[in-house]
């Protein structure tokens, strides 16, 4: 099926009539189109500007990390009573962003959602790079990061063991597992495409480089037979990680007694928020890439529409959680809970962040009820940025506002981030973008083998 002449009208009749791939190409043409960003000698201007800005922001990260290591975490704004601030906000935010990547690559694979094919490599990379940023914050927050291995139970001369009844070793185990499994899953998916790059590489140096990455993969029956099973298995293993990692992160809060934290709704609430912000980040990255690399035939408006619908669904789970949180605060009868939810957050110090959260997470996603909004890349891009802001604000509200208005009014205090806090935050965004842009140039970011397989499948069913 070729693109309808009036796509808007055609899709208005049947929302699922939008194609997943536009136009039938031969496998060679498809491989040529999807592999060519790796060979193109010069990058586009947009890419180079973005790379330069990301490199500048990464310099801020280097500054932030260096002064934190040489001077200590006293340079950060957190202090009693707000002992956890940017370090944990950014950790939760970044790791949440990763979750949509795993959701797309693993859960949608198991649910046989074909629209994941074009974007799964891309979102897996997003997951990896986001988890790297996330891991940086707790590591630095240790104060003496070079002793991170004290979290591992090894027979030390101190003769003490980590306390596994605390949520912090859970975090370490969850994040390490999440990163490792995501990496293995991503690399396994890349194997067939590395083999393609090896076989079409224009010069010997790159043939050797990609040949080493491909490990000698050649798509033989034996390799494919185990490959398919292992890929499904890793998807099955990554699926519970989407749920477990953020549940464990939420336990950092939920197992304490702080008003605003001590709540059984936290694990599902955090998981929904994670996937919500993650889908927003997918859109933030996807819209410009689709435009810069001219990929509207493999990332169609159907993909945008589906991503937007996922944002809408998860937004409503988050909104539902807000309602339950407020209800429980009222129903508990606890004056501390009631004060936290109904006075401190909306009207006390930092309430602007609270209102930013409310507007970005509750009102803005409602625009996604309109199909015109869901399929308009520019509007969608703006919404996705606002959702990212909203979800960051939510973590700020939960962490900082709960701590600064605790049980004892004599212990209340306010929080302001310092220059080092801000450079670390902006810096991780820079490093994230830097890694992502490098990934776009060095790796096939659309899975060529899988798209070719999908195209063959669609053609067999006469849908293309």
């Amino acid at each position, binding site marked *: 099926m070729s693109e309808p002449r009036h796509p808007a009208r055609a899709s208005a009749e049947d929302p699922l009539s939008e194609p997943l791939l536009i136009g039938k190409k031969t496998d060679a043409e498809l491989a040529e189109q999807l592999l060519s960003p790796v060979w193109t000698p010069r990058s586009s201007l947009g890419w180079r500007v973005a790379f330069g800005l990301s490199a500048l922001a990464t310099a801020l990260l280097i500054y932030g990390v260096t002064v934190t290591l040489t001077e200590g975490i006293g340079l950060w704004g957190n202090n009693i009573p707000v002992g956890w601030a940017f370090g944990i906000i950014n950790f939760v935010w970044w790791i949440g962003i990763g979750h949509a990547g795993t959701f797309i690559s693993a859960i949608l694979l198991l649910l046989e959602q074909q629209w994941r094919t074009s974007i799964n490599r891309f979102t897996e990379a997003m997951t990896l790079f986001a988890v790297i940023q996330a891991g940086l914050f707790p590591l630095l927050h240790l104060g003496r990061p070079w002793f991170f291995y004290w979290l591992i139970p090894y027979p030390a001369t101190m003769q003490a063991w980590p306390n*596994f009844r605390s949520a912090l070793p859970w975090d370490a*185990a969850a994040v390490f597992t999440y990163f490792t499994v995501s990496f293995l899953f991503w690399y396994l998916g890349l194997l067939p495409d590395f083999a393609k790059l090896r*076989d079409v590489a224009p010069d010997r140096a790159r043939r050797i480089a990609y040949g080493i990455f491909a*490990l*000698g993969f*050649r798509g*033989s029956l034996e390799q494919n037979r185990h490959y398919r099973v292992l890929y499904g298995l890793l998807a099955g*293993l990554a699926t519970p990680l989407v749920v477990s990692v953020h549940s464990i992160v939420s336990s950092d809060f939920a197992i304490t007694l702080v008003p605003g934290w001590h709540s059984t709704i936290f694990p599902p609430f955090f998981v929904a928020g994670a996937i919500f912000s993650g889908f927003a980040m997918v859109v933030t990255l996807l819209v410009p890439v689709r435009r810069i690399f001219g990929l509207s035939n493999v990332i169609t408006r159907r993909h945008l529409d589906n991503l937007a619908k996922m944002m809408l669904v998860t937004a409503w789970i988050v909104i539902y959680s807000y309602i339950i949180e407020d209800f429980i605060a009222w129903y508990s009868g606890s004056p501390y809970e009631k004060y936290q939810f109904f006075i401190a957050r909306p009207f006390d110090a930092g309430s602007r962040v609270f209102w930013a959260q409310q507007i970005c997470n509750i009102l803005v996603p409602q625009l996604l009820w309109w199909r015109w909004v869901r399929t308009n890349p520019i509007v969608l891009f703006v919404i996705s940025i606002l959702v990212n802001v909203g979800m960051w604000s939510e973590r700020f509200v939960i962490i900082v506002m709960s701590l600064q208005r605790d049980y004892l009014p004599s212990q209340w205090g306010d929080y302001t981030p310092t220059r080092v806090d801000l450079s670390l935050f902006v810096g991780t965004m820079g490093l994230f973008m830097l890694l992502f842009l490098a990934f776009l140039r060095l790796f096939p970011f659309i899975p060529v083998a899988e798209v070719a397989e999908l195209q*063959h499948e669609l053609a067999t069913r006469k849908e293309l």
Partner: protein
Amino acid sequence: MRTGVLGEFETPEAMVAALVGLRRRGYRRLDAFSPYPVHGAEEAAGMSRSPLPWIVFPFALAGAGVAYLIQWYCNAYDYPLNVGGRPPHSAPAFIPITFEMCVLAAAITGIVAYLALTGLPELWSPVFEVPGFERASIDRFWVGVDVRDPRFERGAVERALAELGASRTGWAAARQTS
């Protein structure tokens, strides 16, 4: 497959048909190379389902068991400490790490088992030397008969492949003898 005759086909359907045809002619040691996994190819070549999950399963259980045991040993047996009044052996608190280590062990074993089963990494293979084989990863589908096949006879296999519609055939050799 390292040594044998290879034939090139244009479509995945032709590749599967060739595998079926070769089996009907009595060949048993078949292999095929395709840009993406082709539905039904393994069955056509007479291969069973991959045993990989059964290799991974005991390691996943072991990962979980060892993780729980270490936590119990550290916090309940070797050095019980009263932290916040929680019992030293807090089974619910040990579950998250137990679960994570189960997943981690399964994933790592899966990859290691995959590499072991497929003989990777193996950066060079004799099949790479067959002219035109580089398109096996892009848009061509190759079917091969291994030299160890009891009925293998080079000329006959080449004829069979041509009859089944191969656009060309080639010879892969582990040692450069032919």
